[in-house]
């Protein structure tokens, strides 16, 4: 018989090896799947994982990786902090939507005034909106003990309905011929979140994501709060005796991840998406959970995880164009990748030992 023995500290080699193994296993399984479906297996894998980086139109798709990965990284950084402390915010999608709405609301209210203060005010409003939406599960958990997993998930649906209501009601573009959706913020310079350097895909959201990566890294490795977070996640009981106030930690983690998700929503609404529509939430908040895990809850890992996720999206588009692979392939890939990673993760956390008979 085999048995598992928990490791006291995860060996570095496995920490790095498991994500790589997971990607390789996904490619392998994917190749078999494509072969069965009658596509060229190697061509398909190359198109998805290689072409966005080095293919014919890589000059365009490489910066697009940043556009797609930016919000994922920004959200995942906040989530990772909470996940490390054992606080499960799975409602980042809702916080993303609300942040987008509150941020856009400031811009739309100011329309058509011009001023340098408009965009910064939108950023503040976006972060505040996301923060507030994240604080609802935090307070309900602290006051009543309601599970933050479930409350934050419920609030995603509420946020989606609010987005639909906004798109058809209060925020509908009065010059939009009766069609749903707000004014396009990218066409309103004071409120726009433009590409900062042409051709790079970098906008304020990318910069915010980089700042978040560094800040979260510092937080968890250097700061007292980071220490408390790690302690709470690894040994909750001991942490409590050590003077960590659980309710403060819950509020901190949900507030932080909510604010970052809200920021991501605002940057998306004012930049790449451009407007609030009924379908404003396209799943960044959920995908970011996958990214956080792919990155093993570490900021640097999250950057890589976010880029990898973005790669599969963009590679998936190219594979559709070049090989007529159905779009659902990407979902299968992402699901598989996460399955493999979670499975292989066993090797980082446990040692496999033979049980003495």
């Amino acid at each position: 018989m085999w048995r598992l023995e928990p490791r006291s500290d995860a060996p570095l080699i496995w920490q790095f090896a498991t994500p790589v193994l997971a990607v390789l296993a996904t490619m392998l399984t994917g190749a078999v799947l494509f072969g069965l479906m009658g596509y060229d297996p190697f061509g398909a894998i190359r198109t998805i994982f290689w072409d966005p980086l080095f293919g014919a139109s890589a000059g365009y798709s490489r910066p697009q990786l940043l556009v797609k990965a930016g919000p994922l990284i920004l959200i995942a950084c906040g989530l990772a902090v909470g996940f490390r402390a054992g606080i499960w915010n799975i409602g980042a999608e809702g916080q993303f939507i609300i942040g987008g709405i509150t941020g856009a609301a400031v811009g739309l209210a100011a329309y058509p005034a011009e001023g340098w203060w408009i965009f910064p005010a939108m950023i503040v409003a976006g972060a505040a909106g996301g923060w507030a939406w994240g604080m609802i599960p935090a307070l309900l958990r602290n006051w009543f003990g309601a599970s933050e997993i479930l409350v934050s998930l419920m609030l995603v649906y509420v946020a989606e309905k609010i987005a639909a209501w906004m798109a058809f009601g209060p925020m509908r573009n009065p010059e939009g011929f009766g069609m749903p959706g707000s004014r396009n913020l990218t066409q309103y310079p004071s409120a726009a979140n433009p590409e900062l350097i042409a051709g790079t895909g970098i906008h304020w959201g990318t910069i915010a994501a980089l700042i978040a990566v560094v800040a979260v890294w510092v937080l968890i490795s250097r700061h007292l709060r980071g220490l408390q977070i790690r302690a709470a996640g690894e040994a909750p009981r001991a942490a409590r005796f050590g003077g960590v106030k659980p309710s403060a930690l819950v509020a901190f983690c949900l507030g932080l991840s909510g604010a970052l998700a809200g920021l991501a929503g605002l940057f998306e609404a004012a930049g790449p998406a451009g407007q609030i529509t009924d379908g404003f939430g396209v799943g960044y908040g959920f995908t970011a959970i996958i990214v956080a895990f792919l990155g093993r809850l570490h900021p640097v890992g999250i950057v890589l995880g976010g880029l990898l996720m973005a790669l599969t999206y963009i590679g998936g588009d190219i594979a559709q164009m070049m090989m007529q692979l159905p779009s659902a392939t990407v979902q299968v890939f992402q699901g598989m990748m996460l399955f493999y990673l979670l499975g292989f993760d066993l090797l980082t956390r446990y040692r496999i030992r033979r049980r003495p008979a």
Partner: protein
Amino acid sequence: MIDPVSVFLMLLSAATPLLFAALGELIVERSGVLNLGVEGMMITGALAGFAAADATGNPLIGFAVAAIAGCAISMIFGVLTQFLLANQVATGLALALFGLGLTALFGKPYEGVKAPSMALGPLRIHWIVWLGLAMVPLIWWFLQRSRAGLILRGIGENHHAAHALGHKVHLYRLAAIGFGGAMAGIGGAYISIATVLQWTEGMTAGAGWIALALVVFSGWRAFGVLAGAWLFGGVTVLQLRLQAAGIAVPVQLLAMAPYLATIIALVVISARRKGSAAPGSLGKIFHATS
């Protein structure tokens, strides 16, 4: 003005997919496992059930195959979380993605095909609806009265204590996950075989996520699930009926209501129980140290 009996009959069928999926998830969560992949299991059941009904011409075989397929795909989650000790939230999300993607790929040959019609049961309602209703007291009995149910609840509340008593935590949980998958599969198949009669990718359109909300709303009780399914189904049915009667309703605001009600219900139960209302070990990884 609006006939309440007909509203109720509509409600019965509208709530059925939710009821099946949520009853299954109830057992899963009662065993201390949080499987967020309900949507993936439902859509798998929807496709597999449709394919089987189409091949055999018998919708009942379709439902049986849907249950098997839902159970089978849930085993990915089961093995990963129970034997490889993977995080349940992440694995569940992956299952949802994977199920939606996989069915979209394999469902291509069934696009545009019509399922065989089903015979209706009493009150012009599908037999499956009655089966779903019958499952409610059965599951209540199982959880509250049967020995296996008692052990299952014990495992869900405190897996270490249950393990110390000699119960096989992982096997009970695996069985619960499989049951949850089968029920979700039937719920999904109800949409493809009984409601729409066709296969289209993504046709469960979020029902699996609502089922998750429902379990919370129920306070983890079988009859609570029924009440929740009727509330969620009821709000939809009622707003559609009001519209059909020519009464203007704020659709988006009404659509939010069940979710807000769920949060309120969760808060009330949590507050009353002085702490989390959910099973004590919900979502936590169990690893036997001895």
